[in-house]
């Protein structure tokens, strides 16, 4: 790949040229840490997209916004993935950092101050040009903008604000924008940015305050939760204003999300999921993302760089997260003090069903929606279809199969018109054996059971989001 593509003159700012140029350069000169001004857009994009890749959230979901008939862009509630990278993860947004200069020294982060990596900084205009031109070619659904901390959080967020302001008001971009909130920023700035972006996320980074203190000495739990609470209140207030005045500006309309690193610190699944449940309940988050720790830095406080990242564990956490959000489960039903981690052999829903055989089998033609959701092999879509279809006549096993129920798994737990599909025992060992024989379809193939050998990843959640209009 040719790194040294010369910048075409028109790639540079086109709006109010002379003035803009000097302003952009001014910004770079002000920052001028390690970044050199001679870098091409290609070099910067390579450095700054590489630096942003460990951020997992790349969804463009949560808001339906029609085009206004004048400007470029609209949003689709289910989100749209435009491509899939070699790791099978979805590429939905132009995911970049504004800058990978950083004054912080978080142990797990590739961009930490003490790392010697190539540094680069985009100007606001460069980001806008890239976004507009990628968007119109249907490469992306919008912009995901994050940044390393330049000087201090407020200074950095102001740069992000300038960029978004330009994008919305000078380039008239009407598509999806996701921006990171940096803890410790002036609340006024958070408020202003909230009116320009669709989703905002403040990373929780590590599940517990102790972990955070150990690995991210410059960040504090309280500083992270403060903007989260502010955004939550802003969203609630915004909704109220919108109900009163039709044209009130919307504040973070696609909601906020966060991400937690898994496996860098020794928390149990129970602790992690309890934190997630708390965030959903108390902070009204749209999504919590789990990111299996990938060893990049050698550090005493971190797992060895050769430790395989815990992909199966991450997969189980996402499955459980799904159960919380769409299957009406509570975390106490899945895990407890004595039973702190998920079963590696079975998915959390199967595991739960096997522990609660007294509640099965359920009658397909009579059980309510909530009960149907708890049957292994029946997903949200098939449960909805069952509820609709049975209104006009009883269903049999053949119908269920056509509707999309995975009978191989469901048959131990259901009856149709009072009959089970085969003669089976309702016995934990027997069912477990049979379910295990029907190997679970994991997004990483071969020996998915011993997760040390895994090198592969899933993003089924992205696609579930893509294909089912669950929002």
């Amino acid at each position, binding site marked *: 790949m040719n790194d040294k593509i010369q910048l075409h003159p*028109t790639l540079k700012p086109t709006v109010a040229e002379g003035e803009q140029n000097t302003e952009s350069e001014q910004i770079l000169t002000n920052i001028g840490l390690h970044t050199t001004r001679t870098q091409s857009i290609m070099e910067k*994009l390579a450095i700054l997209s590489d630096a942003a*890749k460990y951020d997992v959230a790349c969804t463009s979901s949560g808001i339906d916004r029609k085009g206004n008939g004048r400007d470029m862009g609209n949003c689709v509630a289910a989100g749209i993935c435009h491509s899939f990278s070699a*790791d099978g993860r979805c590429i939905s947004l132009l995911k970049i950092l504004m800058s990978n200069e950083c004054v912080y020294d978080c142990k797990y982060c590739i961009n930490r101050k003490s790392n010697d990596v190539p540094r680069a900084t985009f100007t606001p205009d460069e980001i806008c040009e890239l976004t507009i031109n990628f968007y119109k070619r249907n490469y992306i659904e919008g912009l995901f903008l994050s940044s390393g901390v330049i000087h201090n959080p407020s200074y950095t967020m102001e740069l992000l604000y300038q960029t978004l302001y330009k994008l919305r008001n000078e380039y008239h971009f009407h598509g999806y924008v996701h921006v990171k909130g940096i803890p410790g920023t002036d609340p006024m700035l958070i408020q202003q940015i909230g009116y320009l972006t669709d989703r905002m996320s403040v990373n929780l980074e590590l599940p517990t305050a102790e972990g955070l203190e150990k690995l991210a000495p410059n960040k504090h739990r309280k500083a992270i939760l403060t903007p989260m609470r502010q955004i939550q209140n802003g969203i609630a207030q915004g909704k109220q204003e919108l109900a009163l005045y039709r044209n009130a500006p919307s504040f973070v309309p696609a909601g906020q999300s966060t991400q937690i690193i898994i496996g860098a610190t020794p928390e149990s699944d129970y602790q992690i999921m309890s934190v997630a449940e708390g965030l959903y309940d108390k902070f009204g988050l749209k999504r919590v993302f789990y990111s299996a720790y990938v060893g990049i830095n050698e550090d005493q406080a971190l797992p060895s760089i050769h430790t395989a990242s815990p992909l199966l564990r991450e997969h189980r956490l996402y499955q459980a997260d799904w159960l919380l959000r769409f299957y009406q489960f509570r975390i106490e039903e899945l895990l407890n003090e004595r039973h702190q981690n998920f079963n590696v052999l079975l998915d959390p829903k199967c595991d739960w069903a096997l522990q609660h055989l007294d509640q099965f089998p359920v009658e397909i033609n009579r059980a309510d929606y909530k009960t149907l959701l708890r049957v292994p092999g029946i997903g949200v879509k098939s449960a909805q279809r069952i509820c609709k279809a049975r209104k006009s006549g009883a269903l049999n096993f053949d119908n269920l199969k056509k509707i999309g129920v995975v009978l191989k798994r469901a048959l131990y737990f259901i009856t149709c018109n009072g009959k089970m599909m085969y003669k089976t025992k309702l016995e934990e060992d027997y069912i477990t054996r049979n379910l295990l024989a029907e190997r679970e379809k994991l997004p990483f193939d071969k020996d998915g059971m011993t997760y040390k050998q895994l090198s592969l990843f899933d993003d089924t959640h992205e696609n579930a989001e893509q294909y089912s209009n669950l929002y």
Partner: protein
Amino acid sequence: MEEYVLICEGSTEGILTGVYEAYLLKKRMGIESHNCIHLAIKEPEMQRLFTHYESIQTDAKKAEKVSNTIERQLGKETWYRISMAMVSCYEDRADAVYHTIVLGLQLRDNKITDRLQEDCVQRTFQCARASDNELCHLKQFLRFLELQNGMLYAKINAKHHVLPYLMPHFADRLPADNFVIYDENTQIFGLHASYQKWYLMQGVDLDEERLVYSELENEYQDLFRRFCESVAIEARVNPALQRSMLPMRFRPNMTEFQ
């Protein structure tokens, strides 16, 4: 029992005309049940005994009557599902749609497409799902190229004829741009001019070799390829997963795989 097979065109209008003619035939011949009548979109290779075959001439007026009836009696949602089924590529779609419509009108059920225990509804559902999925895929994977005059051009190879449903999506998204989507399989163009209504065009030849791309086109393509490369995490590389998310058949038309 004698059976009747009406052979209609595969287009939406053709199938709807077929439905109209089937109702007419039933009345004219005093046929007891719609189950004795079938629609097909192709002459069968081997004709069956005791079966009458008849070819139907597509008629826009008759088709409109049927579509109006469906929309009025069964609702917009049902009409959407049924029209998605009609644009799919399966040969039995006409018959499935016909019997679904019959059932819906008999039962006066505007949720007819939920009755998945009926075979014809099930089949209609499968057809509609297939074209719906492709529509989703094309919204994701279609790639525009910028031509010298600023116009955007995209080529697709769609299995199902979803172009009419794809156009509104991009017209809403890029109202100010002139763009063309060309479906190579059906050789139909979808055209959209800046701030105007989109339309479809047929019967024009396109020589791709003669298209001239804008000066920046190559640079943006390289930038995007570089971006796709650098966002992948090496420790998680998983071609099988990538393939299941992004089927190979879309890749020839996608910038990042060229």
